[in-house]
């Protein structure tokens, strides 16, 4: 039964990829990318990698679609024809695929209990992490403690992505927020017929003035607090179930972005200012790095949480709690900064 599910999901995955490659409408491509992420998240679930699946669903399907769409508002929504035939690229891809298949020939079988990945480091993670690190979710133990330094690296990667975007795009002309009123429909008929061609329709969609969307606003008001609450749950429940700082930050950010989309980017910016976000992003990295430094001052190695408290397990618990908080704050701030940066740019001035 499980192999049937796998086969169906994988074939959907292939179809989606081919469709993404073929399609020239970027809007559709982004939607398909979201579907691709959802399918791979489902595949991860069938492989019992729920943490990865959760991240993939939150990041791939959720926030990256929003960010891509808001980036799309700055450019054309139709891909240009490439000036040359992409045969060399095709050749490279085919060769890479062939080599990959060749490389899997001597791989241990998937799920084989005797394969090296199950018999070497994993043994200690599974057997000893409950009394060495503490959290029932072993993934959290590995990510936050055994390999906590990699996670610090990834946090800085996210930070870098945010400041790179602001450094490159943030300081050109700002968009003046003019409220577009809805035109009566008969006047726009001819426009609508073209709209699928040049894709202008989309740009207006994303900056919908919420004033006329009573239903959206009410539902938004109902759900945004719940989304934020759920983000906090994911943040603090990561020790016990799937979740943690990355997913929580992304979900929290999507709550804020939803607010900005339904009400107005400018209103959202007054609530959560870009300057405050910048400081939050910095604070996130500092919390993480700071925990490491404090460990050093207390006599341990960098990120050795054991020394944070009299009892090593309590120390581990405190350390993991703090660094997850740092990750969550950083990811949240960077995601919203990215959205602001795209939303603030005037169309066509890239």
């Amino acid at each position: 039964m499980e192999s049937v599910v796998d086969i169906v999901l994988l074939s959907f995955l292939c179809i989606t990829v081919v469709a993404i490659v073929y399609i020239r409408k970027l809007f559709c491509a982004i939607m398909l990318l979201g579907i691709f992420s959802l399918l791979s998240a489902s595949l991860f679930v069938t492989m019992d990698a729920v943490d990865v699946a959760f991240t993939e669903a939150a990041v791939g399907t959720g926030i990256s679609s929003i960010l891509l769409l808001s980036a799309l508002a700055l450019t054309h929504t139709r891909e240009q024809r490439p000036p040359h035939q992409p045969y060399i690229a095709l050749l490279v891809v085919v060769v890479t695929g062939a080599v990959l298949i060749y490389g899997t020939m001597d791989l241990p079988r998937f799920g084989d209990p005797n394969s090296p990945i199950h018999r070497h480091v994993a043994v200690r993670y599974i057997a000893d992490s409950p009394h060495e690190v503490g959290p029932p979710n072993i993934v959290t133990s590995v990510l936050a403690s055994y390999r906590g330094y990699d996670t610090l690296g990834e946090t800085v990667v996210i930070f870098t992505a945010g400041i790179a975007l602001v450094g490159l795009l943030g300081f050109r002309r700002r968009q003046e927020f003019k409220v577009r009123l809805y035109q009566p429909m008969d006047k726009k008929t001819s426009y609508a017929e073209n709209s699928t061609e040049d894709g202008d329709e989309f740009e207006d969609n994303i900056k919908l003035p919420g004033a006329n969307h009573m239903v959206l606003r009410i539902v938004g008001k109902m759900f945004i607090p719940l989304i934020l609450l759920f983000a906090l749950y994911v943040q603090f429940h990561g020790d016990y179930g799937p979740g943690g700082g990355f997913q929580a930050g992304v979900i929290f950010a999507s709550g804020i972005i939803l607010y900005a989309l339904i009400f107005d980017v400018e209103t959202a910016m007054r609530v959560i200012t870009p300057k405050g976000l910048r400081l939050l992003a910095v604070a996130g990295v500092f919390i993480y790095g700071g925990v490491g430094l404090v460990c050093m001052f207390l006599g341990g190695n960098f990120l050795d949480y054991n020394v944070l408290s009299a009892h090593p397990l309590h120390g581990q618990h405190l350390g993991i709690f703090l660094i997850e908080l740092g990750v969550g704050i950083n990811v949240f701030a960077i995601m919203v900064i990215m959205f602001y940066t795209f939303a603030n740019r005037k169309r066509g001035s890239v």
Partner: protein
Amino acid sequence: MSHLPILQVIIPLLAAPLCIVFNNRRIAWFVALCATWASFGVSLLIAQQVLQSGALSYDIGGWPAPWGIDYYVDSLNAFVLLIVTGISALALPYANRSVEQEIDPRSQPYFYSLLLVCLAGLLGISITGDAFNMYVFLELSSLSSYALIGMGPRRRALTAAYQYLVMGTIGATFILIGIGLLYSLTGSLNIQDISYQLHANNIIGSGNRTLLTAFAFITVGLSLKLALFPLHLWLPNAYTYAPSVITIFLASTATKVAIYMLLRFCYCVVGSESIFQLTLGQIVLLPSLAAIIVSSVVAIFQYDIKRMLAYSSIAQIGYITLGLSMSNHSGLSAAILHMFNHALMKGLLFMTMGAVSYSVGSVYLTDFRGLGRRMPFTMGAFIVGGLSLMGIPMTAGFVSKWMLVQAAIELGWWDVVILILIGSLLAVIYIWRVVETAYFNPLLELEEEEIGEAPLSLLIPMWLMVIANIYFGINSAIPVEFAQQAATLLLGGM
């Protein structure tokens, strides 16, 4: 101090966010300056300790090596750390004026922050003993360098950065695939442990196809990153359009760190005696020779001098990989020494380019007319850098080229020796074009506007580099010692 290895990386890593706290370009520059000088100091201490008492290791998080991540410094990466931090310690004082002119003042705090992230990434790659941690820091350094190149003053910088982004991401993905395959074979991510597991389980000798594929992916991915000849297409544009400081920094450090990764994976994981070694040598030999000749010829026909130097960089990388492909002690030490010397001379040459572009505004060949008189110090430094690039005795470039030629003679590769000499002659030609224009072409009478010498904050780091180029050409004991120790270490397995 037992915490030295981790301080090496986290000083720039945590100083990077500090740069954008105040949103003030002077504070940001000062923070970056302090961080780079501090990490240079740390790398000096590390190098001293490694020379005295052998390899250092540091368990991050207190977890022992295969379970946690460890930092492992031996004479090879201590040397690479010295190169990277040394160049950045000189580039940062230089950056103040140059960046002021080239980059939007509001972007400057972000610029310095990204520069520090890039530095931390490169240091993290060099120092770590864990394959996946290496990838994480590779991601850090690449991501920040794409953005830094894209910040260049000309609009085409964005296209160049995009090109680099596509190629670099393919390279990084290949490396990740390779590491993943190695993990599935051994169940470990620690480089020493991977090597141990591969040997203990007899995977190496058995012609395992997954292992072969893993190494194919890692080698191709790293060749993209280090711009080995047919995979170098991203490099000329990236170096030409990047801000001057970034060209100095990346040209002298980023490719060297990629070469270091190649050395680490090929020699420390598989070991020198195994069959992959031989194939790696054979695979790399032809592209290296092609790089030396073809890129040097292409360099001759460039009018944008920054682009000319970028092509020359590809040729110089060819010399390094040539040494690598000899896979004997003298070849390897020549390659490692040339990493250091190339960082010195290319850092110097791109510093002169930055000064010219600061004073004149662009670095086209025609802009160099009469500069010999108007910017005597800058052009003097250019000549020293050029001599070093050609490999004239008394300069740093000579020492490593001489070692390379000796290594080739040792193997009896006379044709290779001739090609190396031809490469040097080609370097003479393209450097001479600039020198001729600067000293022997009269200034047109029309150009009355005053073009003066570059400010002192550009000249002092430049002339420190000149001194380094000459000093290490005359007294090369220290780098040669490092290079030979590192080569011994690589050939002796771990």
